[in-house]
């Protein structure tokens, strides 16, 4: 590819694009920024902010100009390059492998010790818990999108099923968290199968649309099935988790122990926060461990094969329907687990927590992370969730920062942060000899 002559930069096209972008910005921002309704003493009035509008329009046009210019410079590179050019698969592959090998244990060690760090106040641990929830959701969706290649825009539905399962089981039947958890996962998985049966013969965009609809249907049912879900009011008073039966409370009934009294500690509200943090860390690591294992099993291989080439997969004896269904259901199961955690952490669930934007955020994490990369998901979740939390002080501009971040990542790394696929099996270091035990392990 180096040999192809550099094409001349097409300035007229760049300028035209930038002008069009500016025009669109003008139309869009006119109402959003340009005019503002103000409460005058004599009634509502309009105040114009032409300078703001000008800034927004110019910023958009210049941004577009720079993007187009950059693209023109890189023009000789194919856009939808699968990551198969020699340089990509050789150098950066091994760099990413080294990165993964050393960074993963470091990240885990960091996560394990985070609550003991001197800077770990309640706010930090809370954010870390939130980030980990999204890491888990991202890993779960990664099974569906990254491994099985099924674009699911309604993943939040399974998260909701898990959350409501635990909410109802615990408040109505008095079940404990650990007993409800598997059932919530199972229920979410059954919903996955229920949805999967009719839709998995659809491809790509159609599947995306149907799953999007399914996500909304679940939310609307939760909203309207008043007798069962308590509608928009949600379910409150969901039991908080206990430490093997020891509640995190200051005062407990006579003759029983709380977490702090049992361990002879002074009561602190941090105990529960930290416990929740470790709980989600455990659940997330479980998801990761499961994914890493299943990728090496025939079923995981079949998912990836289907993603790569459905016709070839079929001609190798893979049953596409069952294979996709299992991927869909397993992905849903992890969303169900995460949902239960969400319910016990919040103590309250309502349909509002399960809107489409949640699905979109989780999907962004997977896509920005590099579809199929486990560490990529972590990085993307830290950036998107942690980042936007940090930007909370920006108030209204928070979502703008979120958007800008996404655009930046897509421009900088169009295939996601870490888009290289880790092989599930390697030959031993001698290129001549396939290692028998490695191969044997793969087959078991």
């Amino acid at each position, binding site marked *: 590819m180096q040999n192809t002559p550099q094409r001349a930069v097409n300035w007229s096209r760049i300028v035209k694009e930038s002008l069009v972008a500016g025009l669109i910005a003008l139309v869009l921002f006119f109402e959003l920024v340009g005019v503002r309704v103000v409460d005058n003493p004599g009634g509502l009035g309009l105040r114009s902010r032409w300078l703001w509008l000008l800034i927004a329009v110019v910023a958009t046009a210049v941004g577009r100009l720079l993007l187009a210019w950059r693209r023109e410079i890189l023009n000789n590179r194919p856009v939808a390059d*699968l*990551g*198969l050019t*020699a340089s990509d*698969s050789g150098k950066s592959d091994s760099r990413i492998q080294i990165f993964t090998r050393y960074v993963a244990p470091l990240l885990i060690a960091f996560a394990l010790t985070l609550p003991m760090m001197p800077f770990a106040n309640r706010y930090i641990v809370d954010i870390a818990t939130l980030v980990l929830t999204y890491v888990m959701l991202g890993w779960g969706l990664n099974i569906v999108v990254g491994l099985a290649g099924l674009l699911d825009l309604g993943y939040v539905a399974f998260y909701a099923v898990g959350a409501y399962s635990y909410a109802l089981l615990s408040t109505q039947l008095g079940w404990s968290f650990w007993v409800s958890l598997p059932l919530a996962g199972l229920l979410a998985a059954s919903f996955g199968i229920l949805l999967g049966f009719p839709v998995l013969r659809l491809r790509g965009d159609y599947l995306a649309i149907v799953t999007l609809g399914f996500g909304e249907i679940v939310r609307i049912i939760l909203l309207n099935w008043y007798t069962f879900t308590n509608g928009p009011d949600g379910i409150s008073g969901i039991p908080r988790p206990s430490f093997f039966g020891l509640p995190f409370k200051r005062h407990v009934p006579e003759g029983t122990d709380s977490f702090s009294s049992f361990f002879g500690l002074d009561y602190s509200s941090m105990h529960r926060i930290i416990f929740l943090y470790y709980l989600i860390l455990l659940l997330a690591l479980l998801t990761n461990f499961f994914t890493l294992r299943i990728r090496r099993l*025939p079923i995981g*291989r*079949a998912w*990836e*094969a289907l993603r*790569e*080439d459905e*016709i*070839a*997969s*079929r*001609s*190798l*004896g*893979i*049953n*596409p329907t069952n294979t996709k269904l299992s991927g869909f259901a397993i992905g849903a199961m992890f969303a169900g687990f995460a949902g239960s955690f969400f319910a016990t952490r919040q103590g309250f669930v309502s349909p509002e927590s399960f809107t489409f934007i949640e699905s979109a955020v989780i999907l962004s994490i997977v896509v920005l992370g590099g579809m199929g990369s486990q560490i990529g998901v972590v990085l993307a979740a830290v950036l998107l969730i942690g980042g936007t939390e940090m930007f909370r002080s920006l108030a209204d501009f928070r979502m703008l920062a979120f958007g800008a971040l996404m655009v930046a990542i897509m421009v900088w790394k169009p295939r996601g942060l870490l888009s290289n*696929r880790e*092989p*599930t*099996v*390697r*030959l031993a270091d001698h*290129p*001549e000899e*396939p290692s*028998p035990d490695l*191969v*044997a392990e*793969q*087959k*078991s």
Partner: protein
Amino acid sequence: MLKVVGVQTYYGKIHALRGVDLQVNEGEIVSLIGANGAGKSTLLMTICGNPRAAGGSIHFLGQDISRLTTDRIVRQGIAQSPEGRRIFPRMTVLENLMMGALTSEPSYFDNDLERVTDLFPILKERASQKGGTLSGGEQQMLAIGRALMGRPKMLLLDEPSLGLAPLVVKQIFQVIEQINKEDGVTILLVEQNAFHALRLASRGYVMVNGRITLSGGGEELLNNPEVRSAYLEGGAKV
């Protein structure tokens, strides 16, 4: 072994196969030649159940397979190296081969891997390279190797020589012969490269517009004036 009788296939309104009769006996290499768009690939795909035959019957080892799904057909012992190779580009060579072994006994794996890498030593050298980074010839070898990993009784090959250098074509045809002679795999070979294909085959069929128009022994077809003028004199320069 394989008996195709009166098979009709449609793609929507396009009538791609208009009553095809073809038979492959155990241990044979049978070549199917024909111009672009004749329906050769469609026939191989129809045998594998995707698309389904709209009429006629397909029997494999005495069993009617025309109503089975593709994965069930494959599990009866038919493997295909499809048109365009269709290897998994982001998986390594070794992983591609493992995908081929999905339907076979795990205990066969080591032997089968050794056999395939004996036939195509280059695959061993490239074992940890991504499939998509292989050259065209290597990809074709991988596609055939992958199909063999399932221990098929019968192998369907769709234009294995397409777009390859003459030397590589020669090597691939040698291996096809080897697979047939040494491993006893029955082969149905679709080719536009009529000269090589017919020389290798014990019998051959010629397909035109979704119908079989000629059939006979490989030598016989090679010397047939119609075949010569349509598929050899013009195309033999390849």
